[in-house]
């Protein structure tokens, strides 16, 4: 039998839901539905959307490749100053993204601490490139993944890793076959957050990678600039971004859920 839901929980829950959804409804109500299809299939929107999806996905891959091991290090090692390190990892969360973008320029820009050598030795210049967009998005989104995975790792029972060791598994095999599958829900949650954050990234991207159609103009940048002259177009772009991200996330979710459990 289902017990009745307590009002003290339901009421704030409903208010919370309304609070999150009403601005969305505002967008939908004000959408210029008549011109929507034309806007939707315009070349610029398609270009920005494709770039957004590609960059956010690549940034997520970067975050996974670097962030999962980092989370493991924070959760499992007995590194000195681990608490400080853990706090530092969250810096991109509290840093205004624009400041993050400037920080990236100072390091990886043409005259940056590292960037000047990339430029001199390899002729690589990251600002104003698609790679720069990926980098900026990864910088801002990585903490979401790291925090999520680290939390899962810390909650996971390390004795399973010991059990694997007694069965002859190396630490790498243990990580791959035992630890990682054990924290998969955390990794997935982190990946989703990370991807969503990367998809909506604006400040660090425009500051570090600039804005050039087809190369660095992602949807949020297109939305922002459209807002300058054509608020209707901005709404359309926002809705497109929204629908696509919801569709992607919902699609993946179904896949995960229907997968072998």
């Amino acid at each position, binding site marked *: 039998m289902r017990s009745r839901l307590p009002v003290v929980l339901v009421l704030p829950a409903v208010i919370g839901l309304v609070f999150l959804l009403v601005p969305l409804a505002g967008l939908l109500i004000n959408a210029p539905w008549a011109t929507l299809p034309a806007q939707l299939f315009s070349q610029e929107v398609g270009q920005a959307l494709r770039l957004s999806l590609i960059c956010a996905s690549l940034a997520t891959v970067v975050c996974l490749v670097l962030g999962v091991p980092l989370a493991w290090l924070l959760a499992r090692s007995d590194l000195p100053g681990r608490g400080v390190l853990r706090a530092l990892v969250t810096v991109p969360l509290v840093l205004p993204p624009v400041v993050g973008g400037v920080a990236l*320029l100072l390091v990886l820009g043409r*005259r940056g601490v590292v960037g000047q050598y990339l430029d001199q030795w390899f002729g690589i210049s990251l600002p104003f490139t698609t790679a720069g967009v990926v980098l900026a998005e990864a910088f801002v989104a990585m903490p979401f993944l790291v925090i999520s995975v680290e939390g899962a790792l810390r909650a996971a029972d390390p004795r399973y890793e010991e059990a694997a060791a007694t069965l002859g598994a190396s630490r790498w095999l243990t990580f791959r076959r035992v630890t990682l599958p054990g924290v998969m829900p955390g990794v997935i949650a982190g990946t989703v957050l990370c991807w969503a954050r990367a998809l909506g990234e604006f400040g660090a991207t425009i500051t570090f*990678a*600039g804005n050039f159609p087809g190369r*660095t103009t992602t949807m949020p940048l297109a939305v*922002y600039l459209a*807002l*300058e002259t*054509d608020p209707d177009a901005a709404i359309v772009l926002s809705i497109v971004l929204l629908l696509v991200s919801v569709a992607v996330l919902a699609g993946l979710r179904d896949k995960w859920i229907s997968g072998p459990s």
Partner: protein
Amino acid sequence: MKRVLVLTLLLAGCGSPAATSTGGDITVFAAASLTESFTKLGTAFEAAHPGSKVRFSFAGSSALAQQINQGAPADVFAAAAPANMKQVTDTGAVTATPATFARNTLQIAVPRGNPGRVTGLADFAKADLKIALCAEQVPCGAAAKKVFEAAGVKAAPDTLEQDVKAVLTKVSLGEVDAALVYRTDVKAAGGKVEGEDFAEAANAVNDYPVAPLAKAPNAPTAKAFVDFVLSGRGREVLIEAGFSAP
């Protein structure tokens, strides 16, 4: 503290006849490029009109116009372009005739030392130089477009920034070799950015209109502030900031 308050009240109560109708708070919505100069003007205005207090909201002109149209309780709107002023006159949020109080022209901005050896507008077509412009959607970008068209230069920008400040950040960090921004912006950036005038700038002079709002909560002071901006004292401050007189 209390004494100061009493003094202020006294002054407010027995000022000159012209000042009796003004006083109290006003809110001025002003284009972001006016931040430095209008802050100065506000202080001067408050000194000249005891009892008055000027609050500013600096942001992109377009965003401000939208806020005004959504009913934001502002008294004065100073825009960076006539187009933005038109956004509010179209809806009736401004009924008075806007007055042009300042002009701004473009300058070539280069990092200190001019590492890209940029000497004129033609250099903006060079592919090996990193070039930043404002996006066409924002006033400085629209102006740049006009200038390039007039000069017959096909600019090859690497980035189209969302506002002037973003462009200046990239110039001052040396990430780009040249950019087109307003003179006032070069001036505000201090020594980190060097400005070069160029002849074609005359093709895109940017007029700054100002007007009191139709529903200004404090109409007399709003009117007084607009007058002050248009006065000789106001002009002085604006020219100091790099603007030219209309």
